[in-house]
């Protein structure tokens, strides 16, 4: 019965699907069994109406297929990602780009509070936030407490550091952790160092001058 319902939903979805969306779900052909494909397609179609992009969901399903996961696990992962993307969109606004939503969902999953995303967007409504969000998530992946990672990244972005310097900051923290430094302390210390350099305009940790492109926030 469920398979019939999912099949019907997939057929109905195919009838009303725009061309770009059809191309997304066509990538699932031959990679998933019929039941899983119908379920993933139904999720993609349902969230698209809410402004959530479908490509990351299709990618997640393909990742599961490539890694040999069973259908139930793939559908659960796609559903969880859809929820994360929707939360990221709610926090970042309807104008957020797809890469921003992907990075935002990763940051939320890492433990960032939605208010962190809202504050970033509020401070920089027209700037791309992919790198700050991704760096935050990556730091948590290396063991930095989510709150510490969020505060560090927010401070650096407000200080006007460039994207390349944010990536360099993350790499520096990773090196410190690999050398035995506590993750939270490494992030705090490196953030203070990079932030000071950024605001004074001397060569940054990436070996490039880092003039502040944004006015410093109070």
């Amino acid at each position: 019965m469920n398979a019939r319902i999912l099949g019907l939903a997939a057929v109905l979805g195919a009838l009303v699907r725009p061309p770009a969306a059809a191309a997304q779900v066509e990538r699932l052909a031959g990679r998933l069994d019929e039941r899983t494909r119908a379920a993933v397609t139904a999720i993609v179609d349902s969230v698209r109406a809410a402004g959530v992009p479908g490509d990351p969901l299709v990618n997640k399903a393909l990742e599961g297929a490539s890694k040999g996961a069973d259908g139930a696990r793939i559908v659960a992962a796609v559903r969880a990602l859809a929820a994360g993307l929707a939360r990221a969109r709610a926090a970042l606004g309807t104008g957020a780009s797809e890469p921003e939503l992907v990075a935002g969902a990763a940051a939320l999953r890492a433990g960032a509070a939605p208010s962190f995303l809202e504050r970033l967007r509020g401070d920089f409504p027209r700037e791309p936030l992919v790198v700050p969000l991704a760096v935050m998530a990556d730091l948590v992946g290396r063991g930095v407490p989510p709150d510490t990672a969020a505060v560090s990244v927010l401070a650096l972005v407000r200080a006007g550091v460039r994207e390349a310097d944010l990536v360099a900051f993350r790499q520096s923290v990773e090196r410190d952790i690999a050398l035995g430094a506590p993750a939270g302390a490494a992030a705090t210390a490196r953030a203070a160092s990079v932030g000071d350099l950024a605001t004074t305009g001397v060569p940054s940790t990436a070996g490039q001058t880092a003039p502040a492109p944004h006015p410093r926030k109070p």
Partner: protein
Amino acid sequence: MHGSAEDPLIARIAAELRQPPAAHPDFDARVMAAVRRVPPSLPARAWTWLREPRILAVSPLGGLAAAAGVAALIVAGAWAAARPGRAGGRASIAGAPAAARVTPTPVTFVFMAPGARSVAVAGDFDGWDRARMPMRRDPSGLWTLDVPLSPGRYQYVFVVDGRRFVADPAAPRAVGDDFGQPTSVVTVAGGASRAAGGSL
């Protein structure tokens, strides 16, 4: 009343009764005139107006202009649905910052695996295909591959000998693994190339 059906009197009466009553010759006309004087209700008039066939006179030039207008609407709708930047579209949502739509940046994936027969990269950027992006080996056993990527955050793994998934030791790990195997992450900033890679 036995045998009454054969009674001539009754038969004559029955024959008289079977005759239709005589009406005035213009009775029907007067009834229809009275009916036409009653105004129909608004819905009834609207329904009648909708059902009445009409003939539209359109010049060839007017017809061509109308057809061109319809075609333009269809093309504009298809373009709007397919263009990057639309919600649910391929690249980004309408109103996205311009920096999110810059040209791809080359990212070099590096992996040291002297004993491997083949190494490929599989990730969000290639549909997680195990064989679509094979890496090249140098004599020392270093496998490399340049992949142009648009700004964003991508998950990936190295596929060793076509079946074994190995996370990039030199890259951050994705927080939370959905499928029981560690996955690496590469973040591409706008306009800066990056090297990703580790060793086995």
